[in-house]
């Protein structure tokens, strides 16, 4: 069965881009979220196998959302996809429980590689 994914990004364009990449590679996108708050809600609702998470978002940012999702499900598999590739942020995200960090702009292969590492 196809692995399920939740896409989190504040811009519709990036959600669309990630959806296209994931679907082309056999993943099933079960939900999209536009901020960290929505990401937690959608995670609880769908329990996806994978989550992509932006950092800079309105309301609740990505790092906070990672912490909240991990608190709800310590097994959550979250990869960060963000334009902000600064060392301290990568460390924060990994400490919060993210499994990988992809800096935008990215090649589609880089996203798939990160996801495959997590779910095989």
């Amino acid at each position, binding site marked *: 069965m196809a692995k399920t994914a939740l896409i989190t990004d*504040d*811009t519709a364009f990036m959600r669309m881009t990630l959806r296209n990449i994931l679907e082309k590679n056999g993943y099933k996108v079960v939900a999209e979220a*536009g*901020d960290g708050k929505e990401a937690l809600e959608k995670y609880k609702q769908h329990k996806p196998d994978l989550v992509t998470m932006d950092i800079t*978002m*309105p*309301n609740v940012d990505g790092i906070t959302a990672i912490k909240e999702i991990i608190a709800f499900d310590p097994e959550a598999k979250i990869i960060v996809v963000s334009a902000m590739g600064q060392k301290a942020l990568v460390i924060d995200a990994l400490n919060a429980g993210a499994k990988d960090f992809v800096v935008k702009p990215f090649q589609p292969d880089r996203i798939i590689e990160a996801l495959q590492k997590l779910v095989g």
Partner: protein
Amino acid sequence: MDVLQVKIADLQAARNSGLLITVGLGSCLGVSLYDAQNKVAGLAHILLADSKPFKENGRFGNPAKFVDTAIPLLMKKMTALGGIPEKFVAKIAGGSQIFYSANNLSNIGEKNIKAARKILDFYQVPIVGEDVGGNYGRTMRLFVNSGRVLISTAGKGEREI
């Protein structure tokens, strides 16, 4: 005709003839004042509502930036040109919200409009025309000999207030 450009955070006054113009009001507020009897006109392009927070930290600078300091300064300039404050009438334009974002829409334009109403009321200057709010920029022209104010917006043409 003499044309006086009013830039961002700027104000100008003139008497008898000429044109005062300010281009590109976004969240900024254009305030025009006019004394019809003495043909004295003034126009300000104002950035923010309140000077107080900036007075405290020493970053105040040019008073034309703030509603509460620009309006009295404009009145003073016009009085120096022979205008009589009791005769002043105001027309205001701008205070729009031109930025689009996922949320967190700010209300700087609205605050500017509100502050101008309050300050003009304090000085007992009636507002006789306005074109404020919305989500587009405006250009404001004030004719010194008549007090006519024309507002133009890209794609929306020109109107008198």
